[in-house]
């Protein structure tokens, strides 16, 4: 009989199934995209970075094979007979022309509409989201990469690389150890030396029977032994070594505030708002990678503007006309009262279908140019409409000429067109 080989495979890779898992996600990307898209609608824009549960109807992922259906004549052998004898009959359940509930041989198609549910990771979630937004890879990387780190000191540890050795601390430790280990012995040596001194200086007895010679020799031997002991205490030992320890800390420690401005007048449908939401999410993710602390302010407006929470921002409906300047004015007021530009990096994103009272558009331009753009890092405007532009757009175009660094505008009809607005932003940050 051959020898048995026993192999420890535990240290081999465990992600042998990673590619197959990826293939599965790839095949069902449409289902997953839909789930991600639904999740984006349900989630807060500040809650985008986690995985998601995805369900796919089982029938969509079945692998079909030839098998028998219901019907015909079948015989099946079962265990555990109690009272049956040959020839017994058992009535079939009502309405079931041979559905065979007691048959234990139910064919796979009898299982109904079960769902196949699984979890995708945060990384995968973002990937699908970015697919939707047609983000180029470089930008994806920037959004997903963990932020820059810097190392900060955080005390000392007992192991590390030689370069991090702290000499002073190590020697101090060694000294303490030497004291601790040798102190008692040294004291003893001192005591014995005193006794020895005393004996040596005492007058020598003439009678050899009372000679101090023996005692002196004993003392000297003892002192020599103790001294050797003390000498064996190493000057520095491995346990004395101390290394400087450093912790990775996220680099940016500054704060940003993000203003989300949205027109909620009657002409903005839920579809418009969903596109706007993706736009806001993207800006949020971008800011999150660059700033440690982000506050989000939601301002909705029709003819007048109001600061609201996220729920109300995206989901309550209004009717009536549109005065965009009301929102800009409110934003300015909020900046003045709560977000001093000296302490906050201010970003703003505005979404609208382009509707505005014509008289109001020049006012908007003026507020932006005079009071807002000088205070903010970046102001992005998206107009969600497939139709022709109105006054507001032309007014904003003039602004962009004046402030090419901090103002961007884009017309979008589907989510894939959101990204170009950000390109400029990414490029600027990369530089």
């Amino acid at each position, binding site marked *: 009989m*051959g020898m048995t080989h026993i192999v420890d495979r535990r240290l081999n890779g465990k992600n042998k199934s990673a590619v*197959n898992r990826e293939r599965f996600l790839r095949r069902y990307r449409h289902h997953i995209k839909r789930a991600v898209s639904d999740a984006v609608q349900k989630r807060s824009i500040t809650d985008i970075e986690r995985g998601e549960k995805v369900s796919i109807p089982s029938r969509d992922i079945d692998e079909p094979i030839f098998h028998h259906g219901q019907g015909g004549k079948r*015989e099946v052998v079962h265990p555990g007979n109690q009272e049956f004898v040959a*020839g017994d009959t058992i009535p079939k359940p009502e309405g079931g022309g041979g559905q065979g509930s007691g048959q234990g041989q139910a064919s796979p198609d009898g299982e109904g509409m079960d769902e196949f549910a699984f979890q995708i990771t945060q990384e995968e979630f973002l990937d699908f989201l970015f697919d939707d937004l047609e983000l180029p890879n470089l930008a994806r990387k920037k959004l997903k990469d963990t932020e820059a780190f810097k190392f900060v000191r955080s005390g000392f540890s007992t192991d590390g690389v030689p370069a991090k050795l702290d000499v002073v601390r190590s020697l101090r430790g060694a000294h303490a150890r030497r004291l601790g280990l040798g102190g008692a012995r040294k004291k003893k040596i001192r005591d014995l030396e005193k006794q020895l001194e005393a004996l040596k200086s005492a007058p020598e007895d003439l009678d050899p029977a009372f000679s101090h010679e023996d005692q002196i020799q004993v003392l000297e031997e003892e002192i020599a032994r103790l001294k050797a002991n003390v000498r064996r205490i190493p000057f520095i030992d491995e346990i004395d070594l101390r290394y400087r320890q450093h912790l990775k800390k996220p680099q940016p420690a500054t704060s940003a505030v993000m203003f989300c401005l949205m027109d909620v007048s009657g002409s903005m449908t839920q579809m418009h708002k969903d596109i706007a939401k993706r736009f806001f999410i993207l800006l949020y993710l971008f800011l999150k990678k660059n700033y440690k602390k982000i506050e989000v302010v939601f301002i909705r407006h029709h003819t007048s503007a109001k600061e609201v929470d996220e729920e109300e921002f995206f989901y309550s409906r209004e009717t009536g006309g549109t005065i965009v300047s009301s929102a800009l004015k409110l934003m300015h007021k909020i900046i003045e009262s709560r977000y001093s530009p000296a302490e906050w990096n201010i970003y703003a994103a505005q979404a609208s279908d382009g509707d505005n009272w014509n008289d109001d558009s020049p006012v908007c331009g003026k507020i932006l140019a005079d009071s807002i753009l000088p205070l903010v890092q970046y102001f992005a405007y998206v107009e969600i409409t497939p139709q022709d532009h109105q006054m507001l757009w032309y007014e904003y175009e003039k602004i962009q000429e004046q402030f090419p660094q901090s103002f961007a505008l884009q017309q979008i009809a589907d989510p894939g067109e959101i990204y170009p607005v950000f390109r400029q932003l990414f490029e600027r940050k990369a530089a």
Partner: protein
Amino acid sequence: MTNLMDRPNPPESDQPRAREPISTGSEWTFELIQKYDDEIAKCAAEFGLDTYPNQVEVISAEQMMDAYSSVGMPVGYHHWSFGKQFLSTSKGYQRGQMGLAYEIVINSNPCIAYLMEENTLPMQALVIAHASYGHNSFFKGNYLFRTWTDASAIIDYLVFARHYVAECEERYGVDAVEEILDSCHALMNYGVDRYKRPAPISASEEMRRQKEREEYQQRRINDLWRTIPKPDDDDDPVRRGKRYPEEPQENILYFIEKNAPLLETWQREIIRIVRKLGQYFYPQRQTQVMNEGWASFWHYTLLHRLYDKGLVTDGFMLEFLQSHSAVVYQPPFNSPWYSGLNPYTLGFSIFTDLRRICENPTDEDREWFPDIAGSDWLETLHFAMKNFKDESFIQQFLSPKVMRDLKLFAIQNDDQEDVYRVTAIHDEPGYRDLREKLARQYNLSYREPNIQVWNVDVRGDRSLTLRHIPVDRVPLGKETDEVLRHVHRLWGFDVHLESVEDGTVVEDHHCPPREFEED
């Protein structure tokens, strides 16, 4: 190597020995596993178990999930269906709904068995006895495995298949390869010649031949279709009456690989790969009861032998017996946990009873098994293991006692009747009938629809017709049209499937679907 005739040390189980257990704790170490394996190997040799060399691999739970998801192939090509399997396995495991399999064993030489690091020592010993000596000797001895699989070549072949599929993905795109694989998987169970002995699979041979095939195959295919007679040849009545193929072909994948008009060479090669894998798994599908029964019988027997030798403690045996009874538990038909006959139970019961019939035969046994009753049990069990598959094994060796112990009974469900009928039970008039019915239940062609290639319209629209021969009027399942779409993808022209009973078509499927004339 030992064999039945000259076993060195006939087992004597009733001699008490001094207790000198190999270990007393439940934590395992590599040294202990090695020691247990040494002792189990000695016991296995006493009983004349002939095995491939063993390779025991200790893996983590995550790795077990990986192994599980690739249907037990240690190396596999990439496919989404394995990813799906992985997702559902890991989901079930993480939620604690499902324990992982204790063991996976690969029919290869050396025979690879996986041990999970979480298992206790008695469990590791159980798995070694079950997989490395039970299954292993079955793989090496059973005629189906000997005929259909080549244990020494399978790993190499899987590596070849993986590289080939990966290369195709690179050249033709992941989607194109996935389409072909999907379609092949749908027909994987129809990629075997049941009655012809296949050429064994060997990787190096395969690689060499694959190159040759690439050159010649396409030309051969073209030849077939070039020899199609011109329409005016239709006057020839002899030619007209002949079908192609002349005899029905049950190996649908093989037929498509060799005859589908439009496939590229690499697509034919992929069909071949799936066909070969189907062939590799074919014996397993037909010997589940025997294989699990044999392995369970031996883990039971070998570990008891360790106990008799005083090598394991009472605590060890208690833990082992608890796992053992869970494995061979058979819930009755009316239990909420019932999901058909447990192959471990059935197989274990038959082998155990077979030994009893040899060692302590009753009058009933002498009447039912005149050749076996009182014979050498080891020889008889080995004979049974080597020369049968589930169907014939049950037909040959299921004893009245096992039928009584399991309280087996047969129920007939005829869709033309309002009632179920109990047709046989575990009593004198029922034994033979019951045994026959149970044996038939394990006949593959009774479990899976009998579908064969019937005809290709060589002179006409090149359509492919499959023929289904129903048994007892059992129709085809709901997924049939779906599978037909896959056949259509491979064949490239119209595909028809007819169920023919006594010469009349009782059911038909078409891809693309026929426009129905309502009447």
